[in-house]
């Protein structure tokens, strides 16, 4: 098993005809992902290396039964594309696009939260379920199938940690990049809930970073709802505090948001926190037993 993407995934890609969109779509297909269609307004009727392109997500769903959307369009068109995918009834939307305005994300988030579609990202590397499907830009060659569920706010750091795990013989059930934007569509909690329910996942690794309080909230959630072992890594202990102009940010977040506060919150609830990426694999080995 795995979470979110697998052999049942029927992927339609918004922005498939762009340079990056084409590159990663074909790469995902080469990996074995069932890419059923693409969406580019005005390019309906064309194809990308045999993948049919439609003018709208509604047509892509009607004609190709797409159940998963990947958003690869430029930031100023991304919110519209996500909302279109949702309106067309697509249940999982993975937004790779970086640089979407925060207010667009706010509207999209609050709209989708009240419906039945799930958004991963934006500004994320996507989701990889090794051996099954890759929806996004995660370099699949570093990862193999296994029992570690990995959820991360960071792209390259995910690859780094996945690689450390792989070198110790640990594979992954799924790797989910939730993105580092201020208003991500899904949080650590959303994904940890899925891993907790996933039969293949034996251990959950969450990779956080400074800012927001998603890690702190996850700590509470884990203590209350998660039976599987969780290992955390937080980046940014030595990051300089941002220059903030007003008082509101500090009043709102208090001391939350620093790497130290996050690590403390997690450890206080029994989650082991690694101090560097290699240590994540060390701790996983302690918990699951060495595999190499």
């Amino acid at each position: 098993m795995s979470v979110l993407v697998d052999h049942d995934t029927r992927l339609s890609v918004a922005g498939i005809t762009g340079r990056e969109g084409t590159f990663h779509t074909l790469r995902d297909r080469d990996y074995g992902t069932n890419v059923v269609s693409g969406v580019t307004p005005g390019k309906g009727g064309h194809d990308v290396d045999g993948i049919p392109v439609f003018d709208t997500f509604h047509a892509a769903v009607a004609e190709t039964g797409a159940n998963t959307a990947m958003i690869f369009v430029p930031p100023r068109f991304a919110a519209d594309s996500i909302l279109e995918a949702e309106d067309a009834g697509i249940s999982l939307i993975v937004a790779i696009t970086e640089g979407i305005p925060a207010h667009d994300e706010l509207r999209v988030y609050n709209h989708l939260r009240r419906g039945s579609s799930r958004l991963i990202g934006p500004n994320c590397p996507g989701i990889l379920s090794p051996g099954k499907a890759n929806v996004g830009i995660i370099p699949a060659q570093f990862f193999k199938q296994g029992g570690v569920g990995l959820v991360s706010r960071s792209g390259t750091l995910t690859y780094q940690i996945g690689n450390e795990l792989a070198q110790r013989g640990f594979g992954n059930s799924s790797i989910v990049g939730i993105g580092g934007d201020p208003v991500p569509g899904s949080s650590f909690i959303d994904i940890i809930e899925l891993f907790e329910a996933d039969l293949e996942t034996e251990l959950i690794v969450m990779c956080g970073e400074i800012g927001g309080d998603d890690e702190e909230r996850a700590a509470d959630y884990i203590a209350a709802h998660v039976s599987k072992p969780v290992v955390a890594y937080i980046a940014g202990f030595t990051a300089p505090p941002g220059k903030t102009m007003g008082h509101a940010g500090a009043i709102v977040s208090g001391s939350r948001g620093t790497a130290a506060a996050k690590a403390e919150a997690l450890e206080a609830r029994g989650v082991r926190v690694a101090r560097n990426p290699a240590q994540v694999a060390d701790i996983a080995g302690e918990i699951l037993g060495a595999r190499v």
Partner: protein
Amino acid sequence: MDLLEYQGKQLFRAHGVPVPDGAHADSVDGAVQAAEALGFPVVIKAQVQIGGRGKAGGIKLAKDRGEAARHAGAILGMDIRGFTVHELYVEKASSIAEEYYAAIVLDRSAKKPMAMLSRMGGMDVEEVAERDPEAMRMVHVDPLIGFQDFHGRRLAFEAPIGGDLVRPVGAMLAKLYEVFVREDATLVEVNPLLVTEGRDVVALDAKVTIDGNALWRHPDLAELRDLSAEDPQERMAKERGLTYVKLDGNIGILGNGAGLVMSTLDVVAQAGGRPANFLDAGGGSKADAITSAVEVILSDEKVSAVLFNIFGGITRCDEVARGLIEAFRKVEPDVPFVVRLDGTNDEEGRRLLAEAELPNVHTEATMLAAAERVVELAG
């Protein structure tokens, strides 16, 4: 993107938020002329993108022409918490009966805008909020339904403020929310929100942060970007599409992706080193981005060693190696480099580097080993 007070007040005026009359000036003469046009007394205010201007002496009352000239002269060129004052705002002085605090902020935790109001306005509002959290009233606003009258009423009654002020303060909060949404702000703060002796409600300060990702919707605001306020190296990096932050140490750090860069900083610190700066070349970095990155890092004279930490996903390690080789050709660095290349095409990248035989470049297989090595070399 942080706006200066006078820029924020331009937005306020455009959205009907009441502000005192005022004018921008960038010279003593300009300030004096503005003051005379407004009529004395006026307040001369330093325009810098940082709080604490008042305490630093950057805000002065001028009762006549002479005072205006003297204060303008003193404030122009002043250093306020690292920011040099190049611009002034000359504002008609207001009679002060009460000082409140109001803000609209994006609350990442609730993923909603949040409106805030306190009777305890003034400079030390942050401390007030910590000492007496009840004094800072906050309500979340559903962004799909927007700011409603009841949000403003609730804040006003709970603050609590005088009954005659419930409507005007509520109306101002509604307009601040309009600024927040229409201008793609992530922060709109008024401190103090002034109640005059005539019971008028006006915004005496304006702190507005605009979402840099949304500037394409606001070409007028995009033009305001005040590059003079930025560090020259940060500006150089930004012009080249790179994220660069200057720090206090002596080790230059380059990585790809914010998470990996932050992690690299942590690991270097754990190894006993002190980063001089860090640069995120971003995902999918190409050779020329790497070349630019090296140029930016080395433009900082404090750098005595550089750590290159690349985990190639989209980024291809052979591209990184080519960029590094090209950078060495152009810049001819005189400090040691420690390079860790892993991920996509890493073997090809390491082969290219080995063949190039760059002077004083050390390769390491892991992030930890690379961190230890660079700390050793930086001395």
